């Protein structure tokens, strides 16, 4: 446990260091972030997003999975991200790299709404 926290701290430090010294090396920065970033899942079930609102740290990859018998989409209200049509058990992922609030909805069933808060 302590060991993994230590490694994570080292990684974050390394990322910050790289970012400071060589800010143009976005490829290295992104791959380093992926290793430390968290993930979160939102289930689409019974025509609703669960949880409807989630708060995640910057760099989190959120994955939506459709557990309904009916296709749905995940579309950012402010056009930040947009999934293709997700049939039953299909997934869509998006990595949030900037803090902010990201409201989204199902463009097929617009009564279905959700929000990702990135801190």
């Amino acid at each position, binding site marked *: 446990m302590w060991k993994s926290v230590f490694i994570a701290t080292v990684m974050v430090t390394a990322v910050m260091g790289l970012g400071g010294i060589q800010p143009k090396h976005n490829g290295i920065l992104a791959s380093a972030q992926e290793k430390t970033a968290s993930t979160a899942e939102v289930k689409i079930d019974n025509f609703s997003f669960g949880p409807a609102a989630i708060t995640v740290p910057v760099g989190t990859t959120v994955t939506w999975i459709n557990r309904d018998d009916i*296709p749905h989409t995940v579309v950012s209200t402010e056009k930040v991200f947009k999934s*293709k049509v997700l049939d039953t058990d299909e997934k869509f992922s998006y990595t949030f790299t900037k803090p902010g609030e990201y409201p989204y*909805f199902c463009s*097929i069933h617009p*009564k279905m709404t959700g929000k990702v808060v990135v801190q």
Partner: protein
Amino acid sequence: MTGKTKDEILHDHNQDGVDRRGFLKCMAWAGTGAFCVMQGGVLKSYSMSRLSEMNAAELKGELSFVQISDSHMGFNKAANPDVAATLQAAVDKINALSTPPEFLLHTGDISHLSKPEEFDGVSQILKGATAKDVFFVPGEHDVLNDDGKEYFERFSKGAQPGGWYSFEKKGVHFVGLVNVMNLKAGGLGTLGHEQLEWLEKDVKHLKSSTPIVVFAHIPLWTVYPEWGWGTEDSAQALGYLKKFGSVTVLNGHIHQTMQKVEGNVTFHTACSTAFPQPKPGEAPSPGPMKVPAEQLRSLLGITDVNYIRGQHALAVVDSTLG
């Protein structure tokens, strides 16, 4: 005939003694949908079991057409693993009608996932209908990709750029509307400014005695907003139709028959040919209702409309299913 429908409601709005021959009748079939006969603006519906009690003369009008809806070709889940077979059964039912329909209306969700092979499948089965003309409006399942390119290329030839259109048949004015595009977060179906403007112009010069049939996928009345069963700007559309003595609005989307009369307007939703959906609020979501295989076909359907010209188009009769 009236005596056979104990649950019918008669509205003679203008109270001018409209000729009984000017009835518009709607026969709702629990098994394969609703059968309607329109005669001068009065609507009656009957349970399917009563069809055999009707004679051909009672059902005959000057114009017959059939509405089908929500065939969801490509759907293969528990509620109905063979939607092609049930669509075929609907076509067989249509072909067996004693008054052959002149054309078909499909009120959307032709496909489940907007795939070319799904559209092909429906077109192929509908070719088996004795009525050769089919008029379509899209459901949200038909326009999932590329702003509905696949649908509009196949089914909207001759329509306005947005896919809406109108046509005349034997003095009845038909309007096909599109309310499944550009849906907004948290909202219902939408017609949009451009389409509303077109509708206003389209009906402006028609005589108020012209019977109007409006068809669109999502109900043009608020059935159950919690499930998105309604259209944001339908009131504006209906406002343009106020002057007409007979307006019949045919919708799909909710996979069950439902009727409502408001002024001169009769709203009717058709059954799906694919799978039933729950009654408003009676399930956690509007997802497909899983029913025993032997019950499935009793919850699917078609809608048959038969118009007979009356001297006035004034009254509406609505009936619940038996």
